[in-house]
């Protein structure tokens, strides 16, 4: 009865698409994630990195743990991360509480400001703190003329706190918006004091969010490289120790060993966070935003002041770095100048352009490949769904610095043509940020009615047509969001790529460290400012694109 039929050859071909894509994704993750990790493991546990029973050795670990000079980096890391975690969790809990449970004004402003740290490399905090509280700091030496300065543990902790705020905020804000406020009211109406309500109802009901935010903060702090390398001074942490061993002493084996040591707590924190957020996710899904009863006057004022203080700290970080890049000699000569923008290093503006086009490629490739991978996983007949899922979530658990070192060990061979080119950086950033990309793609695909895919198939649609004509267009908003994420991460990441820049490939975020290291602090600020501006410009463009793409057809047509 059918006059034109679905081509049989096309359908034969179609059978291979999902398996091929799945194998390709798995191969990618194996080659660019598991293989580098394996090289690190090998180098730390085997003499000369040669895999043989006779070569097995724990001497690297023994050396690390018996040398006081290196061992302290572990204690430093644990101390700094522990303290940061406690501070961030407490600060953000009350901040999120203010934004979800009280009727303070300017909530949108606070929400935007708290997210600000995401647009800059995790070095901006350290740069600003040095300008304010450093040896020649505006506040320390200029205002109070004291010798005290912030270098060392204090500096790391303060900068990490300011860097981790947005990450922890997202989690606790979600948790606190979801927990039913009527519980609090019910308890209050039964005569419980506000303090009792808080400790007995509010805190316990947010416990998963609190643990999850704490675990994430710990993970972010212990794996961060940018802030400690700038403000740590002689106070070494695991991340800076890895870098020092590799770049200063050429001790790749010790670098690999410390990487393994770093992996243990960061992996633990990641797994705790992952486990907890899965658990709490089921609790908060589908909850409606409740009505918030008016907050008592005093409470409202206190919370407002609190939120303004935090917002002020973040704004101060950014203004310090930006102003610092435009004045002649901070904090002595406030004459405005553009001198710091003629970058003295070899990288200079070319580093910025390289960063921009690498980030554009990372944005497109990253969001596309995670969407394809998510589709292959969520399609009607997936292959190895659980395996793909497992390996897709893994990158988030691996510190960027460790992955970077793994890349050197794995790919620094003449036959890997991409080593030393921008392409290895593109691959590295995509892989390092694979997890969030795929998770958001999966949740987007889950919102598409499965019948839509079946409708396409029943009409003769093959995998490619279904994907390109239906799934992809329907995912465009999620695609743009993912692009934004990949672009931002690519512009601002330091630890993932610090080992991968070369004499010919420079990146803006890495240039900040190089400039700072060579004493060009103001230029480091200028470079940082450039990144911030570029990210903001891109966010503006994407906001417009998103508005255009998110518009449903119904708003642009009038029904007859």
């Amino acid at each position, binding site marked *: *009865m*059918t006059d034109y039929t*679905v081509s049989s050859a096309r359908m034969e071909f179609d059978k291979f698409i999902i398996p091929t894509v799945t194998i390709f994704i798995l191969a990618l993750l194996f080659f660019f994630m598991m293989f580098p990790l394996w090289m690190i493991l090998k180098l730390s546990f085997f003499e000369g990195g040669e895999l043989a029973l006779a070569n097995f050795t724990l001497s690297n670990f023994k050396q690390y743990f018996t040398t006081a000079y290196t061992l302290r980096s572990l204690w430093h890391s644990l101390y700094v991360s522990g303290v940061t975690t406690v501070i961030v969790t407490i600060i953000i809990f009350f901040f999120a509480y203010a934004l979800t449970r009280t009727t303070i004004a300017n909530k949108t402003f606070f929400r935007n400001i708290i997210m600000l740290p995401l647009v800059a490399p995790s070095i901006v905090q350290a740069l600003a703190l040095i300008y304010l509280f450093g040896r020649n700091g505006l506040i320390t030496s200029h205002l109070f003329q004291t010798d005290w300065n912030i270098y060392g543990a204090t500096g790391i902790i303060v900068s990490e706190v300011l860097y981790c705020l947005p990450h922890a905020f997202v989690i606790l804000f979600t948790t606190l918006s979801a927990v039913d406020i009527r519980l609090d009211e019910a308890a209050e109406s039964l005569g419980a004091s506000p303090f009792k309500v808080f400790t007995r109802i509010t805190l316990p009901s947010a416990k998963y969010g609190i643990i999850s935010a704490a675990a994430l903060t710990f993970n972010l702090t212990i794996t961060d490289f940018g802030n400690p390398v700038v403000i740590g001074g002689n106070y070494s942490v695991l991340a800076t120790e890895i870098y020092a061993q590799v770049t200063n002493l050429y001790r790749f084996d010790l670098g690999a060993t410390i990487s393994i040591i770093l992996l243990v707590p960061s992996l633990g924190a990641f797994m705790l966070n992952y486990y907890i957020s899965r658990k709490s996710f089921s609790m908060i899904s589908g909850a409606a935003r409740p009505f918030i009863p008016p907050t008592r006057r005093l409470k409202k004022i206190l919370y407002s002041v609190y939120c303004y203080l935090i917002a002020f700290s973040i704004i101060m970080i950014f203004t310090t770095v930006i102003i610092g890049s435009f004045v002649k000699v901070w904090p002595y000569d406030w004459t405005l100048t553009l001198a710091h923008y003629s970058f003295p290093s070899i990288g200079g503006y070319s580093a910025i352009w390289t960063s921009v086009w690498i980030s554009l490629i990372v944005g497109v490739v990253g969001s596309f490949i995670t969407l394809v991978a998510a589709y292959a996983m969520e399609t009607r007949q997936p292959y190895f769904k659980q395996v793909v899922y497992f390996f897709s979530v893994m990158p988030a658990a691996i510190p960027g610095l460790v992955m970077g070192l793994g890349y050197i060990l794995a790919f620094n061979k003449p036959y890997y043509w991409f080593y030393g080119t921008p392409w290895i950086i593109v691959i590295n950033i995509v892989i390092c940020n694979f997890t969030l990309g795929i998770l958001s793609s999966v949740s987007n695909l889950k919102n598409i*009615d499965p*019948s839509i895919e079946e409708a396409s198939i*029943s*009409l003769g649609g*093959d995998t490619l047509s279904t994907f390109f004509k239906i799934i992809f267009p329907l995912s465009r908003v999620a695609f743009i969001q993912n692009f934004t994420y990949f672009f931002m991460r690519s512009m601002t990441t330091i630890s993932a790529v610090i080992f991968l820049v070369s004499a010919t490939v420079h990146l803006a975020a890495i240039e900040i460290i190089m400039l700072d290291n060579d004493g060009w602090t103001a230029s480091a600020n200028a470079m940082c400012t450039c990144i911030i501006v570029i990210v903001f410009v891109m966010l503006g463009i994407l906001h417009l694109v998103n508005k255009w793409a998110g518009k449903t057809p*119904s708003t642009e047509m009038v029904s007859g």
Partner: protein
Amino acid sequence: MSKNLVLKNISKSFGSLIAVDNVNLTVAPGEFVCFLGPSGCGKTTLLRIITGFEFQTSGDISYGDKNLNNVIPQKRDFGIVFQSYALFPNMTVSQNIAFGLTMRKMPQNLLNKRVDEMLELMGLTEWKAHYPSQLSGGQQQRVALARAIAIKPNVLLLDEPLSALDAKIRVRLRAVIKRLQHELGITMIYVTHDQEEALSMADRVVVMREGQLRQVGSPWEIYKHPKTSFIAEFVGTSNFYEGHIKDSHVIYGKYSFEVSEIDKVDSEKIYLAIRPEDIEIVGTTIASDECVASNIVEVRTELVTFLGAVVSITVNLEGKEMIVDIAQKEFAKKPVKEKESLYLYFPPDAFHVYSEIFKKLI
């Protein structure tokens, strides 16, 4: 080109759950078959096996002389209409309808012609440039129908296509689907849990329960001769009474009824079923000799409910409730009041007898 769709011993289990249990069915070309059954009885699963989206655990499915067991959905040439419409939100009405034709690489001029035909047929021409989100539910489902029949499918499969719509539109679309089926002679399999839909549309109704086909027949047959007590209750509704057989009569309490079907059951204990509308009202009084004639009983009315076209009277029969439906017109002639005595007549052929009763009724 007339081919039968044949299901042979089709079973499907999900783990330990048997969703479809040994189904045998032949659907003739041009036939309109309805799968009717309560939610969870396996209708959708059976339909999905036919479409190829689900694979049977055992059994064979064939179309004409072609075995479909290993044929992918794309190659089955079956059109599907989903409850959720499943229109492509990013495509206009025309583009939606054209999708299947594009996949078949139909030349553009023929394609345009076919799309226009479909738009015309479904009364959608003025909406052709609209997106699904701009249409009402009823219009969207018409687009889904047009999209499915545009490819001239061998069989059109519809899974509760109307259950997301309001009652009025549902009735209108029923007529649209029925007309399509007549005009185009498409073989249709229509899944529903709504007995009215099944009875009014189908050539043949397949009543399903717990994954099994319990009765297959014309709507008339199913309604008039329900094979099991479940069907007697699920399709339409029935009053049920437990009794036993004595002297070729059914004894219920103090009554003894003459029942035409009495030989159908040989168990001692039996269940009697009678539909509310099959019961006749004799009057509030009777001539004394009439009572002797069997199957006339005196009852007390409890509740009279006016339902529009019919009036439903609840009476008490030996302590058990009985529903009697009479046409509003009849009622007007012989009104019945609450809490009074009433004589009813049970025609012997209106009774159905069953040796078992499905558990929900006890």
